């Protein structure tokens, strides 16, 4: 029996090749449940905290004793219940406002959602030719501030339709008599307050009346109207375009140095019929186009100005960090390094850049890659107009996906599918006590690069695992290579950043993955031995593939930071009890940021 055991021991030379072990702690939990955890830490609802914040769930010691404190959540208190606050002066509604704060600021508090509060119902407010999607009281306030009548429409339910409504209004000359003079205002029919009757112009039959008469599509300088307004006396900016103005200060048609064409015999003309959309290259055309990067501005130079007036379509451009020209209003994404495909480097972040008045302004997306930047473009006559935005990185439930289709469902999450890695287990709390060390319990396993003066964001991941091989035959367990991801691994497409230099969830997140491979040898009858199982695990590419999974989980594994520095203390690779490191060649592969492609290739081969 004993002899048989020895034979078996010889045949089965159990070897633990490596451990890319990152213990899983968050088994069975979803990240979003942690919000409740944060709340549960708060022991009281402070009406005001010592720092001056209103209505916070916080430890009781942080509450200002001059205000109310209750050992419960703020949502259940009377003074800190959140609701909608309404102010009748300006007609403004504000949600998520505590009752006390609302009342102290002269508002009226309502426990209902903003959509259910009658005073906060939105409608289309048309004031002259402008539109605003606001409450009725706000509409009246705007009307008062600008001294014009309003037209409030409750049947229009969205902002786009509201703007369209304003743009579709009839415009024309509003003529009336004032102080024995025939006065004209270029406005909308509604603002004119004239009758709905369509007026026809008959020059031989113009009567003076104090009653207003609206002449649709006529300019105030139209000769037929016999007003005192002379045509094209100056120019002015209006809604981003340059317009001719008559001597009475009324807007006419879009500016063009071809005065006859622009005046259009005293009738309203569409801007595109006067001159083509101007990208800023034509100083004598006022049809500025925001999407082409031009908008109306005052000409301040000495030479080369417009033929008439002081306004022109100013072209504003910026140059992005890659040297590309960007037009005014364009926004685009900027990165610290390679992005996506699980390859975001440690400490990197997404940025949105905007060209605003010739200057590139940088808007960082949320730190720790909790937001990523997305961009799209609109085709214009002079090329694409790019717009970008920061949006939430949905990485949280990637690891729990074991189906490729679910993993790659971009409607639900931002994950990617990697090929299978021999012996890889994901999302399982490693059992067996002494077999694996939990780096989370060993603070020394983590280094804080900032504390040591190193480069911020250096990758340091939890290090787990131990060599299993060795010991007597009787003690040697019958180890096998197992995996719970036989078809592949789902990992974040944009790995989240982790605050690994302090006590945080970094240990938990990095500890989700563990790879263990058993190599089986068969001893020949005449001596020697040959590998019958697990040969692939002896190749460095297996370790690279494992590392690839680790680096995709977040700031884990052996990886490079955004400044190009590689750190190899973020993994532990043990083969037959001996700790190994990546070869310089493979370190260069990892540093060059092409880990993803290389490893995915190896994974396919190995898988």
């Amino acid at each position, binding site marked *: 029996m004993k002899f048989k055991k020895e034979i078996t021991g010889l045949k089965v030379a159990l070897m633990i090749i490596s451990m890319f072990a990152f213990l899983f702690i968050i088994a069975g939990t979803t990240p979003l449940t942690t919000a409740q955890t944060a709340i549960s830490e708060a022991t009281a609802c402070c009406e005001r905290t010592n*720092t001056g*914040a209103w209505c916070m*769930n916080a430890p009781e010691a942080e509450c200002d004793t001059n205000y109310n404190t209750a050992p419960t959540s703020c949502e259940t208190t009377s003074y800190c219940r959140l609701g909608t606050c309404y102010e009748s002066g300006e007609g403004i509604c504000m949600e998520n406002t505590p009752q006390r704060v609302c009342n102290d600021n002269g508002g009226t508090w309502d426990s209902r959602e903003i959509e259910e509060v009658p005073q906060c119902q939105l409608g289309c407010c048309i004031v002259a030719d402008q539109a605003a999607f606001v409450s009725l009281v706000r509409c009246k306030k705007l009307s008062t501030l600008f001294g014009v009548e309003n037209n409030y429409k409750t049947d229009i339910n969205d902002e786009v339709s509201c703007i369209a409504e304003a743009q579709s209004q009839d415009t024309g000359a509003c003529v009336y008599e004032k102080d024995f003079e025939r006065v004209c205002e270029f406005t909308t029919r509604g603002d004119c307050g004239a009758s709905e009757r369509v007026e026809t112009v008959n020059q031989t039959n113009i009567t003076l009346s104090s009653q207003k008469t609206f002449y649709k599509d006529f300019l105030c300088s139209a000769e037929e109207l016999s007003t005192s307004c002379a045509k094209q006396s100056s120019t002015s900016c209006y809604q981003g375009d340059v317009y001719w103005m008559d001597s009475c200060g009324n807007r006419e048609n879009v500016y063009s140095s071809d005065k006859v064409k622009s005046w259009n015999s005293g009738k309203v003309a569409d801007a595109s019929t006067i001159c083509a959309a101007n990208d800023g290259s034509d100083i004598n055309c006022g049809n500025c186009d925001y999407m082409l990067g031009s908008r109306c501005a005052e000409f301040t130079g000495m030479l080369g100005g417009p033929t008439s007036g002081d306004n022109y379509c100013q072209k504003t451009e910026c140059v992005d960090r890659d040297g590309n020209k960007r037009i005014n209003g364009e926004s685009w994404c900027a990165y610290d390094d390679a992005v996506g495909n699980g390859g975001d480097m440690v400490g990197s972040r997404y940025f949105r850049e905007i060209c605003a008045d010739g200057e590139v302004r940088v808007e960082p997306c949320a730190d720790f890659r909790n937001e990523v930047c997305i961009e799209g473009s609109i085709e214009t006559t002079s090329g694409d107009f790019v717009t970008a935005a920061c949006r939430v990185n949905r990485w949280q439930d990637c690891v729990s996906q074991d189906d490729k289709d679910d993993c790659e469902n971009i409607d639900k999450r931002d994950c990617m599918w990697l090929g299978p890695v021999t012996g890889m287990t994901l999302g399982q709390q490693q059992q067996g006590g002494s077999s694996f060390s939990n780096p989370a319990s060993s603070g020394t396993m983590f280094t804080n690069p900032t504390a040591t003066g190193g480069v911020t964001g250096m990758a340091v991941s939890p290090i787990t695992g131990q060599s299993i091989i060795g010991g007597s035959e009787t003690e040697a367990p019958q180890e096998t290579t197992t995996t719970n991801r036989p078809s592949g691994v789902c990992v974040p497409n944009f790995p989240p950043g982790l605050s690994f230099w302090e006590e945080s969830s970094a240990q938990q997140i990095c500890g989700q993955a563990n790879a263990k491979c058993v190599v089986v040898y068969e001893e020949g009858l005449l001596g020697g031995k040959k590998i019958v199982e697990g040969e692939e695990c002896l190749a460095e590419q297996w370790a690279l593939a494992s590392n690839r999974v680790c680096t995709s989980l977040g700031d884990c594994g052996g990886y490079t930071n955004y400044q190009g520095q590689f750190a190899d203390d973020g993994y532990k690779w043990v083969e037959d009890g001996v700790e190994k490191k990546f070869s310089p060649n493979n370190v260069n592969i990892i540093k060059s940021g092409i880990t993803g492609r290389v490893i995915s290739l190896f994974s396919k081969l190995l898988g």
Partner: protein
Amino acid sequence: MIKISMKKELQKKGQVTIFILIAIVIVSAVLVFFLWTKPTYFSEEGRELNFEGCVKDVVNQAIGELEKKAGSINPQFTYQYNGEQFTYLCYTNQYYETCTVQTPFLKNIFNEQMNLLVKDKIDACYSNSISDLKSQGYSVTEGNLEYDTAIEPGIVRIEIEAPTTIGSQSLARFNVEINSPIYEMVMISTSILQSEAKYGDSDTSSIMRFYPNYIINKIKRSDGTTIYILENQITKNKFQFASRSLAWPAGYVLQ
């Protein structure tokens, strides 16, 4: 010869008399001007006495001070960034939650705080003007000063009730108007605040498109705080504040 010299002497005396008479007329005219005309001048051109000018300076200074603190003279709850304190207008200390509004109506608080901030200084402007007049020898009766500020599109209006009597001239009210974009800035900030409270973020690009004279700098900090700096490109006024809404932790929140 004697006759001739006497005649010359008489002519000289006549000239002196005429000069004296002219001098009296001039002095009288000056006195009448200063005693009667000058108070009227005060009422019409108060600026010359530097009362309106003083008020304008005070209000401009107050606007400049308040817009950096989001409308509060002494904001308690702030975020420090680049050596400056940014007042939190909306805040949550939790992750994954939208913020709780701390100051719902910016315009009201700005108006209220501006009234407080300028009170003593406008009183000082008035007192100084009265003192100036008194030192110039006018008989001045001063009354209780009352005023109100109103923020409107493009202007800040100060209505001052100052029942004052200077000589026989009575003055009651001054209206001082100051060109300022503060109304628009406060309303744009309110709009950002509404968006932060509802969605946890705001789209500054669309705001900048609708308000081409404004630049909005939006800076997201690692702790989830967002700093907003709204700048009027023409006047260079800056309105700035902070918000912490829908913040995300690094990784997960530890259980």
